[in-house]
């Protein structure tokens, strides 16, 4: 593992929250890295802590939530050691940019697309002439495949469709020379045909410009079409990380397997879908051992005694499960 190739690396991150009922353990991530030019997916159900992870990286935690320990290395610099001022001047919206499900919230409704994009460009390239600036804006809008940039840039955000708004936001991120884009369910509100276009764009930008993306989603199928590697997040803990093909063909963690087998894929029609009983863990009193133990069909007493170690099973594939050995890689057929 060469840490130089990583745009982001998270080590031993623990995030807790004070609540009226006590301390809630929200995130507990042993190790996670995003390589330069990679689209890395975080998959989890609601309450898994996906969005919280994004906010932690950007240093935008709510008042009662705090980082207990750990490191978030952005190109070698620990973001957790930086002051809010430094983060907002050098990192947020510059190096690391986030796009949300609702793009309207991140665009200023009273300025045109041109105003907003050119503002970002001139902040990063002071001293551009008007003509140069204009050309750069067009260039940036073309880069994100906005059709008819000359016309589009005269429009206000509310005159654009959802897909176009997301593209404008991505172009602003690129103008700011961001090298890490965090997409938090950014395509969820879009129509599927439009969504496909945004996914294509992310792939292309990763390839062409080496833009890395942290792709947060609850939709495994969606993430696996666009990501190279996936991390499975469950109740704040990463249970499995690996290349997409490995994760979906050879899921090694029981949770990943259940998640995949509960998807209503075409072949499963006419049969009941397998179901995992139990409820999502309460962050206020988390299990001491494996976080998935109480819902795991392969449960045995040792699971609830110690936290499973986070280990590399095959190169680049990490797992947190004690009983992994018992599942031969061919066990994926049991979901048919």
């Amino acid at each position: 593992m060469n840490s130089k190739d990583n745009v982001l690396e998270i080590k031993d991150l623990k995030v807790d929250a004070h609540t009226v009922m006590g301390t809630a353990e929200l995130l507990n991530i042993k190790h996670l890295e995003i390589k330069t030019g990679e689209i890395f997916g975080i998959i989890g159900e609601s309450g898994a802590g996906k969005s919280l992870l994004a906010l932690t990286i950007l240093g935008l935690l709510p008042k009662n939530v705090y980082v207990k320990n750990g490191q978030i290395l952005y190109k070698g610099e620990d973001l957790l050691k930086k002051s809010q001022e430094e983060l907002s001047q050098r990192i947020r919206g510059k190096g690391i940019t986030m796009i949300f499900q609702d793009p309207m919230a991140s665009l200023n409704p009273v300025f045109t697309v041109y105003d907003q994009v050119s503002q970002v460009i001139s902040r990063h390239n002071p001293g551009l002439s008007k003509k140069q600036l204009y050309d750069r804006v067009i260039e940036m809008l073309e880069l994100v495949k906005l059709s008819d940039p000359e016309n589009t840039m005269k429009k206000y955000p509310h005159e654009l469709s959802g897909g176009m708004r997301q593209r404008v936001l991505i172009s602003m991120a690129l103008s700011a020379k961001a090298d890490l884009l965090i997409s938090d369910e950014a395509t969820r509100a879009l129509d599927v045909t439009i969504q496909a276009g945004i996914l294509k764009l992310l792939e292309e930008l990763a390839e062409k410009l080496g833009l890395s993306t942290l792709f947060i989603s609850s939709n495994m199928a969606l993430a696996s079409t666009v990501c190279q590697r996936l991390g499975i997040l469950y109740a704040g803990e990463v249970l499995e990380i690996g290349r997409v093909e490995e994760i979906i063909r050879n899921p090694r963690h029981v949770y990943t397997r259940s998640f995949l087998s509960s998807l209503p894929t075409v072949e499963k029609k006419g049969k009941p879908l397998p179901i995992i009983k139990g409820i999502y863990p309460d962050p206020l009193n988390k299990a001491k051992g494996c976080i998935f133990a109480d819902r795991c069909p392969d449960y045995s007493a040792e699971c609830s005694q110690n936290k499973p170690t986070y280990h590399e099973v095959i190169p680049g594939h990490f797992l947190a499960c004690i009983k992994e050995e018992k599942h031969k890689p061919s066990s994926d057929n049991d979901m048919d």
Partner: protein
Amino acid sequence: MDWGEINLKNEVILEAVGLKKYFPIETGFLKKSIEYVHAIDTVNIKVNKGEALGIVGESGCGKSTLAQVLVNIYSPTEGKIFFEGVDVSPKAARNSLGFKKNIQMVFQDPFWSLNPRKMVRDIIMEPLKVHRIVEYECFDTEIERLMDMVGIGKKRMFSYPHEFSGGERQRIAIARALAARPKLVILDEPTSSIDTLSQAEILNLLIELRDEFNLSYILISHDLSVVHFLSDRLAVMYLGKIVEIGKTETVFNLMYHPYTQALMKAIPLISSNGTVQNIEALEGNVPSAINPPKGCRFHTRCYKCQEICRNKEPELREFEDGHFAACHFANQS
């Protein structure tokens, strides 16, 4: 457990003929309506007894409006609706309790689909009260039975909706819909706001309930895998019109209409052997429903588009047994 082939009787339970719904856009001082949103435009559909009809399409295609017209939340601008062969288009017929009892609806939003100020017992009791399904003394037994049926412990009868998870709330909504003992249930994106694991449970539940009570479903969704899983027949809508309709498998495999092809290609699907379909984007945006394009409504984004498509609106033509598509060049690639 294997549900096997679903037994299809060709008994039509619901039929809509030439259904139209235009929403007026009120402008000006006197609120004169000059323009209309053509939400659904001349739609004909049939639902058979015990059958699940899926309707897919992107936002603004009119699928939700269609559902709400069918359950009488909106009245149609034009067209007729027949329920079990009886014309229920007149207002009086549609508003009669006897008709309303037959069609119930489950909504997408699990947060607002239940009144936040009412306890589960009162929520499920509402249809029992209105339709006098059982005697007053038996309400509680009936509520317990319904809660048991959807898998919510009867101990939680006196809980408020906010004490339940999204999936559980959707179960309560299903229990409420079934309390009226309807023949047809319209499911508007029943699983799109809940997690994958809860989704699997809800889908299983819906299939079990259908088999148990011989229910008919109209399932509206943008998630093709959910639609495929639940429905026997599938209709694809674009800009207020049905562009293709037929057996689910046939629609998935043959895809006569270019829009169906585009839709299928754009949706990320994982198959059980772990292959991921490569997705393709469809260029352009959905045109405005206020002034839909002349001729074929899809022509602005269609790769097959020719002169005739811009001028002449294609009719639904039958290609296979019971499989219709509305495209001039459907069987040419």
